[in-house]
C-alpha cells in the first residue's frame, strides 16, 4: 500500500509518501506528481520519502517521469528524507546525480 498526502505552501507543495512504491502502487505516485506539475503548475514539488519502505524499478521510473514533467513546465522536483533503502535503489539505478536531493524539507524549501 502507498499513501500520498499533500501539504500546500506558498509556491511549493510537499508530498508525504509512505508505504511501498511497487508495481501495484507506483502509478498512484506518478499520477499525483504529474497532476502537480501539469495541471497545478506548482513551481516546486518536494517529495518526502522518509516513510517509504520499498521502491522498485517502476517506482524509480515514476520519479524520473516526474522529473521530466517538472522540466517540461519549468518547475522543480526535489527529494527529501531518503532512507537507506531508497538511497540504495537510486544509487543502484545510477540516478542519484540527476535528482535534486536534500537532507530535509527546510533545506529544500530554501534552495
Amino acid at each position, binding site marked *: 500500500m502507498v499513501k500520498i498526502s499533500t501539504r500546500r505552501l506558498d509556491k511549493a507543495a510537499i508530498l508525504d509518501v509512505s508505504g511501498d512504491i511497487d508495481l501495484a502502487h507506483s502509478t498512484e505516485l506518478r499520477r499525483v506528481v504529474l497532476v502537480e506539475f501539469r495541471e497545478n503548475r506548482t513551481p516546486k514539488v518536494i517529495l518526502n520519502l522518509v516513510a517509504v519502505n520499498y521502491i*522498485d524499478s*517502476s517506482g524509480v521510473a515514476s520519479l*524520473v517521469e516526474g522529473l521530466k514533467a517538472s522540466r517540461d513546465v519549468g518547475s522543480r522536483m526535489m527529494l527529501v528524507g531518503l532512507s537507506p533503502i531508497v538511497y540504495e535503489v537510486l544509487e543502484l*539505478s545510477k540516478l542519484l546525480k540527476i535528482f535534486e536531493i536534500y537532507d530535509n524539507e527546510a533545506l529544500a524549501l530554501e534552495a
Partner: protein
Amino acid sequence: MGRAGLLLRLELTSNPEILSVVRSAVTCLASNMGFPEADVRALTRAVDEALANVIRHAYANRPGQPIELLCRRVTERAAERRGPALEILMMDRGISVIRKKFCGRELDDVRPGGLGMHFIQNGVDVVQYSRHLRKNRLRLVKFLPVQEPEKANGKGEW
C-alpha cells in the same frame, strides 16, 4: 524435480497486489537462513522485479494467471564458487521469453523503465531463463556468505 531442501512453494496469480506478500515471505525466509540484511534486500528486490516482469511482460498485465515459486536450500556449483545457497524458481505459462530481449539497457541513457533486469542481476549470483513444455522458468540463486567457523552455529539449520 527433487523436493530435497524444499523450504517453501508458493502458488499465486499475476496480480500486482501479491508482490508485497511475496516480498515479505522472501525477506523472512532469507533472514532465517542467515543472509545479512543487505543481501536480504538485494535478493528480495531481484525476486520482486522478476515477478513484476512476469506480470507485465509474460502475462501482459492480464490478472489471474498462474505463477509458481519454489524456494529451496541447495548446494550450488557456479563458475568459481561452490557452497550453500538459496535457489528460487519462478514459473509462468505466459509469452515466451525472447533471449535477446534480456540485454539490460544502457543505464546512462536515463529513461523510465529498463532497470528491472539490472536489479535482478545485481541481487543474485545466478540468473537463468529457460522454457520447457510451455512453461517459462527463471532460476535465481544466491550464495550464503561464507561463515567464519566460530560463527557457524545456530543459523541456517534447514
